[in-house]
């Protein structure tokens, strides 16, 4: 069973994502702040770390913080960033590819 760390400051939103992950048989651990995410990454092995980023210019700050914690591990989790809000052009995905993580956009309701 895949181990997923889900960082999302919005508790209700995090609960919805965790529920959606059940269809791919994963075990999801939710956290709402970057310090807890870093401690969890230090303490146990995750396959994937999902970082939910809120709209704004500094969307990449939590991703970078968690990425740096992950890179300290012998086998770091793959980081997937879920961007909320409007499409921001190709530069976001190019930046993510260079840094070794993936970016997906949340589908608008």
């Amino acid at each position, binding site marked *: 069973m895949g181990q997923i760390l889900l960082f999302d400051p919005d508790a209700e939103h995090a609960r*919805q994502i965790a529920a*959606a*992950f059940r269809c791919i048989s994963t075990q999801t651990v939710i956290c709402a702040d970057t310090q807890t995410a870093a401690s969890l990454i230090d303490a146990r092995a995750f396959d994937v770390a*999902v970082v939910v980023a809120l709209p704004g210019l500094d969307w990449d700050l939590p991703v970078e913080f968690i990425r740096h914690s992950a*890179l300290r591990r*012998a086998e770091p989790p*793959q980081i*997937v960033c879920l961007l909320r809000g409007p499409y921001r052009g190709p530069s976001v995905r190019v930046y993510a*590819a260079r840094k070794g993580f993936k970016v997906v956009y949340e*589908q608008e309701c």
Partner: protein
Amino acid sequence: MSKSAKFAQLIQEVHVALAERRDLRQRGIHLIITHARVDHVPGTACSAGEMIGDVAIGGVLGPVSLGLSDTSKLLIDCFCRYRMPLTALRIEQIMNSDPFYFHYAANRIGRTHVALPDRSSVRVYVWRIREQMEKVLRELGLRFDAQRILVSEATETNTLVYRLKATVEFLHVDGSACQ
């Protein structure tokens, strides 16, 4: 829009990431070995006198060279072509009997002598290859223990055998550029 549809793209991405991780654990990394020969006939197998132009990691944005020395390239090539656990002694025997290694780079213009790994130097070259692999993987943001790619295992008689855990692809190119 349902909740699962809202996160469909995320679920797909995480599903693929989990599958990639499983694949990496089970099959190791992907290596691309480029053989070069001036008169290589396309579609034919590797032959004596060819050179190993490069050993690169594939499966990333583009092949990334491991930057290995000639002797290390010979050793990696041997693991890739023989696909079985090899002792240092067996590697030395292969180097001295397989025409590909014995006549290695015989068609190269200029310096032709390349030191073949022998039973005493295999351990050192394996260590160097692992160091170089880890360096390149780190630069690619892929922290991966090279001891799990180039594996050493002890037999029941305590003899050390080496085995490469990777998928391999051989490319043959016109070697005039590699002289």
